[in-house]
């Protein structure tokens, strides 16, 4: 039983530590992603029927 208690204890506190960190990190980096997404959509240069490589070349 002691092994089970340790396993779930470590997993729970790892979960809380990871989740706290990722929340802060994603909160900052996500703002940049939204800004870039809206900029590209307003340019209207993306053609979803073309392969990714074609669209990447257009963006450059």
């Amino acid at each position, binding site marked *: *039983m002691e092994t*089970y*208690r340790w*396993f*779930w*204890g470590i*997993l*729970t506190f790892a*979960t*809380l530590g*990871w*989740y*706290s960190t*990722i*929340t802060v*990190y*994603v*909160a900052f*980096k*996500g703002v*940049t*992603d*939204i800004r*870039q*997404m*809206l900029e*590209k*959509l*307003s340019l*209207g240069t*993306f053609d*979803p*029927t073309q*392969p*990714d490589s074609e669209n*990447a070349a257009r963006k450059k």
Partner: protein
Amino acid sequence: MSHFSWLVDGSIVGLYLVVTMAAGLMVRKYVGKVDDFLVAGREMNVFLGIASLAATEFGIVTCMYTAQAGYEHGFSGATPGILQALAMLIIGVTGFCVKPLRDSGVMTIPELFEQRFGTFVRWLAGVVIVLGGLLNMGVFLRIGGEFLVLVTGMNPDYLVITMTLLLIMVAVYTIMGGMLSVLVTDFLQFIVMSLGLLVVTYLILGKVGWTTIVDTVEKQHGVGGFNPFLNPKLGWEYVLAQAFVQIAATLTWQTTIARLLSAKDTWTGRKIYIGTSFFFVCRFLIPGIWGIAALAMLSPGQIGTAHTTLEAMPIYLGTVVPIGLMGLLVAAMLAADMSTDSSYMITWAAVIYNDILGPFRKGKTSEKKGILINRMIVALIGVFLFFYGLFYKLEGGLWDYLTTTGTVYLSSMSVLLIACCYWKHANSWGATAAILIGAAFPIGYLVLEKTMAGGAEALNRDYHFTQDRAKIAAFVLAGVAMVVFSLLKPQKNSELPV
């Protein structure tokens, strides 16, 4: 007695709602094409994808069933979360199925199936995806409303009004801005939701204590509360059924796949999978701890005979979370629920428009008309959610219901996707047989459960037919049907999309 203060907590919730609605409506001006509406122009990057996927996959309904699992099974209730985290990580790292799927440039999975199996299979796949998906999300609105009523201490008579308001708020920005609004609001909702989940969990751990939580599991559930294989209510059949469901959900669940298909390229989509994988452990374990805390702290008198184990967690939170923090909790849960509902509405609308109605459209539909049709589909899904939530009476565990309805299409779609990507002998006969057989078992179970005297208990007692066995049978027999019928009726092989 709930600690919710309409002045303090109501103001926090009101502020959250105003900011979310404003953000959701502001981005609608960027929607010019059907692609912008359904897959956000495929411009989503990694961190927005992680926030969006995490917010979508955690709703009030998730919080309720994972807390119920914690209350009823202890830590073993978090098993599906661990299985899904492993599935997400392995599939993200290897690119198994998701790489050829995203590389193909399709908007939905059935669109890919058309390339290998023809138009009829695409249409049939669309029908079972929508059938399973709508049955699945049909209970979301009611469960969300019930949570809010219980946690704020509102009069239960206000349940229908709460459901209506929730639906209207979500529908407005989803109809106007489609996937683009969903992504932007998902991001805000991820932050509010995560903040609320973390703060409330730290509060509970501080008040109850880790030792009390572990001791409660040991006392109430014994070793079965820690190990699902040794839990008399779970066992290996449960773990196997969950493994099938979680792998299939990672490969084909419409809201998860929508993030992959909205990503700006294939590697970005895979990074979203890898980055979000561990969140699925949090998704089950954090509310699971809330459920265990409710088990430890609530007396039988506080739950009463009128309430089920599903309601133990919100009743407990209503008594333990103080004024001010209660506003953050309700805002967090609203955020979780709105992001889930909006995402489910838009992604299932995509399948209805693209795969079910698509074959009947003659000629090219203008972008303006396409967006209008999609908006109407989203609105109709909203109406369905409202009435289904109002009239459907849930039998048994919520998580069991969700996985059984999900299996209606998860079983066959995962088999079709794997065969489509990697097996050159797969053909339309095998695909059609797999879809029909995969849907038959879970639908048969749900129908029997509702029509047979004694319901689920009688099915188990008289026929040994359980939800887990229905799921396992659906997955195994869908796979067998694909192989047998493909080999029985060999067709000219089409190219693999790899």
